[in-house]
């Protein structure tokens, strides 16, 4: 009972990366950037499974490249393909019964609720633990910046951020951009840490 269907080949993926940049590492970063944009696009359009739609978009782009199509601007091309993917997905979704939550994980019926709650709590603890480790790995000044940026509540927050911006000789907008980038780095670091600590294949 063996049935296998591989959709992509390593060569197709290599071609896509090479079209982004000859240097593979740089190409990988560009790939991740486009993927991030695709996720934002599909989420904004209301997709319940943006990861899958982003994968589907890349699949189609790679297939067209493998068929000989020349792509000048990969990001804009991916956006064009993504719009078609979304149109098809929307049509398909309109015909399906409404799901309450498309991303729930199924647990075996004989597991009691206590196990699920304990697992969920453990996962949260692991994530918070990893986030703290990642914060500790930051340079002192960077860590202090993140703490100060998110510290204040309510009306004090704006004042405190203005003071922080003045201290760092920058603008509020630049501060916001810096905080946003750092937060994404922390999220990546946390994800790697959680994966290393053996979340296994249960997702």
């Amino acid at each position, binding site marked *: 009972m063996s049935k*296998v269907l*591989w*959709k992509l080949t390593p060569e197709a993926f290599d071609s896509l990366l090479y079209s982004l940049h000859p240097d593979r590492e740089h190409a990988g970063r560009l790939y991740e*950037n*486009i993927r991030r944009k695709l996720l934002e696009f599909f989420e904004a359009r209301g997709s319940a499974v943006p990861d899958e739609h982003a994968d589907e978009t*890349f699949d189609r782009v790679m297939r067209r490249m493998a068929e000989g199509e020349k792509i000048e601007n990969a990001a804009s091309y991916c956006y064009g393909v993504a719009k078609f993917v979304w149109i098809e997905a929307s049509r398909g979704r309109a015909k399906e019964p409404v799901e309450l939550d498309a991303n729930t994980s199924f647990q075996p019926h004989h597991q009691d609720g206590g196990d699920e709650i304990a697992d969920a709590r453990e996962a949260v603890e692991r994530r918070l633990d990893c986030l703290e480790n990642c914060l500790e790995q930051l340079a002192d000044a960077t860590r202090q910046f993140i703490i100060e940026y998110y510290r204040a509540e309510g009306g004090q927050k704006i004042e405190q951020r203005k003071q922080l911006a003045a201290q760092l000789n920058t603008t509020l*907008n630049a501060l916001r951009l810096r905080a*946003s980038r750092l937060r994404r780095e922390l999220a990546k670091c946390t994800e790697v840490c959680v994966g290393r600590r053996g979340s296994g294949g249960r997702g």
Partner: protein
Amino acid sequence: MIADEFNEDVCERYILGELSDGDQEQFEAAYFSDDAFFEKYLAFKTELLDLYSRGQLPEEKRQKFEKHFLATAPRRQRAADAKEFISAVTAFGARLEPAAPVVKPTRLSIFQYLKGPALAWAVVLIAVLAGVWWLVSRKPQEPEVAHVQTQPSSPISQPTAIPERSPDGSMPPDQPVTVPSTEPVHNIPEAGRQPDVSRNIPPITTQTPARPAISVPAAAIALNLVATRGEGGGNTLTLYSDTPKAIIELPKAPIGRRQYSAVIQTLSGEVRWRSDRVKPAAGSGRLKLSLDAGSLKSGDYTVTVRTTPAANAEVIAEYYLRVERSTQKTPSSPK
């Protein structure tokens, strides 16, 4: 034009789903082609999420946000992540804050202090203190002090003495509630006697002896594609009575997928385990399924990997798995 320059109002309307179709496409085209535009969009969106998480959005905006932005599970997850992040960073920062500095009084050199009128006041004060000391030292010793010292120490666990109520429920007047002494039981010397060191109770330590670690290894198997039912040997997983977990490793996943759906079911179709978020391992790209060993009884199973959770989704790979349960405990590995 929407895409000429980043505008926060336009960005907010995009996030809340209020742009027309044409404007929406212009905005999206802008962030796909301009990385700086995209960064500003992400930063603004994160800020909006943070405001919502802190409950600081104006009411009308909050309602729009909940109606549109939180309509899908991925975005609800982003809101939850934002809340978790802020709480974690705030708590982390609070733990790092140094204790309030102790304000030490400015020390004055005695020579500085004794200059001028302060010298006269210091002399007067010393004289007054000396007089008080002389008076106190002339008082006879209170007999209660010696009496207290000969009393046996009261045990810490003695309950508080509470006066009894009268039958009509009223409390007797002027009955102070006595509280037992909180002095340690040991080392209260009787008058004139040395403390009995043999009765010294060692301090209670907060450390509890470490329990010896008892770890039973998980049962693991790497599945092959070619093994089928009846071939024997390959793809057989043995689970012992004390095996806590089963780890099933599948060959390298297709490139480009960030996650898959995997299901383990009996040959009659009964699902024993399922996950819609199986991610390839970094590096090897292999898929690893980790499940409670108790969910698999002896028998034959199929392990199916799909692109999405939907039942009619494309099947990436399918494997056969035989599980044999043993009533014995996991044999120890030879030294």
